[in-house]
């Protein structure tokens, strides 16, 4: 059900300090989300593609993960030019496709693609426990990080519980239809999942107390300082400032217009 095809690897990107990667990913995706100039968007997208290439991600998985985005974009391209007001470029009976609508679609496509590729190359290339530790280093509250790791840990367990329950209803001849009985069955399935989760939570909590839990997770991976991190950082700042330059025509003032 759930896989992490990019988490382990030995590329240049995988070896960069995860804290640097998370911080830079936040910075460049925020910037990409605010762009309005097509050259700047193309530059950001090129940067994200270069990162995906450098991280040596498996192309098949990259495309598979872009599927839900592509489905959304198809919907956008079909709907927005028709409903968006602006100068009509094509008329068909009462329907009008607007030029501004098409431009907006292109903008959404470039930006969302760039942002998702940044995320894939920089954040999905680490395991969840490393992500948790990096977030903590970047001043995310410890309790939230703890919650993230806890949720991650139990998704797989609860996923197996779900599989078991699903097998049980299938073996009793259930096939989904649009009937009240069907929805009731799903409701009990969901409720049973929550009940099992709650019972498990109680046991887990007791086990944690028993082992002297005091609200801290001790992580075994360490961040090793290296000159590579700084080279990566400078390169990414180059991307950031280059994009800014294309967007605004100058790098000063650095304030991003709201």
């Amino acid at each position, binding site marked *: 059900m759930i896989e992490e095809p990019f988490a382990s690897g030995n590329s240049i990107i995988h070896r960069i300090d995860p804290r640097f990667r998370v911080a830079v990913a*936040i910075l460049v*995706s*925020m910037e*990409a*989300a*605010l762009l309005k100039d097509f050259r700047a968007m193309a530059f950001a997208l090129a940067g994200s593609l270069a990162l995906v290439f450098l991280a040596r991600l498996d192309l098949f998985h990259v495309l598979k*993960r872009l599927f*839900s*985005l592509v489905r959304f974009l198809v919907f956008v391209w079909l709907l*927005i030019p028709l*409903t*968006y*007001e602006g100068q009509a470029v094509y008329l068909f009976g009462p329907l009008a496709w607007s030029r501004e609508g098409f431009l907006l679609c292109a*903008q*959404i496509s*470039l*930006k*969302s*693609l760039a*942002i*998702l590729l*940044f*995320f894939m190359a920089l*954040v*999905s290339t680490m395991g*969840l426990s490393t992500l948790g530790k990096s977030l903590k280093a970047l001043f995310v*509250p410890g*309790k*939230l990080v*703890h*919650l*993230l790791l*806890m*949720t*991650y*840990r*139990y998704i797989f*367990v*609860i*996923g197996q519980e*779900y599989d078991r329950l699903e097998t049980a209803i299938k073996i009793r001849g259930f096939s989904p239809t649009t009937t009240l009985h*069907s*929805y009731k069955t*799903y*409701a*009990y399935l*969901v*409720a*049973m*999942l*929550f*009940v099992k*989760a*709650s*019972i498990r*939570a*109680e046991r*887990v909590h007791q086990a944690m107390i028993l082992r002297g839990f005091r609200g801290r997770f001790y992580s075994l991976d360490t961040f090793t300082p290296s000159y590579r991190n700084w080279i990566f950082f400078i390169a990414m700042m180059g991307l950031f400032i280059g994009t800014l330059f294309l967007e605004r025509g100058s790098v000063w003032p650095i304030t*991003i217009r*709201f």
Partner: protein
Amino acid sequence: MHVSEGVLSAQMLAAGGVIAIAGTAVGLKKMNYERVAEVGILSSAFFVASLINVRIGVSSAHLILNGILGLMLGWAAFPAILVALILQAVFFQFGGLTVLGVNTVIMALPAVISYYLFSRMLFNAPRIAATAAALSGFLSVLFSGLLLGASLIFTEESFFEMVCLIVGANFPVMVIEGIVTAFSVMFIRKVRPEMLPGYVK
């Protein structure tokens, strides 16, 4: 329900981020370390359950379940949903980093509202409790749709027609969420009532 990357204006992204941080801060404050295991594992269950597809006529939709999560967790629904969204981003690339705040608000704010509106009625007579639960499921998805619509319309007024289409198309989902939430809550009330707020032994 998700807003995708690259659509919203800077103001909307910033507003979503600020509200999400505030809500998460309140949620974290109300959730002491005693409850982290409970909230975390319920959040995993929410993540798994929201992958379930149900049939609607010839089409299908996945469950959202923010109403029932709100009833069980109250303000802790904010951090729980934020965490589930981070995991969805990591696993399925349903969204990236910049819409995390907005999407958290879209899902979690209705959950908290449903907690304040309906959590006191869950141990009343079965008929009242079931109605309250059904309304909580229905309205949570409706509010989520309206918040999503608002974020789009404040970005571009021209999105109005599209928003009407999206909210309208989600009406069957709201009805199904209402039915599923009602049956789920009544089941939990029988099997493990201490999971619901307002339970006295």
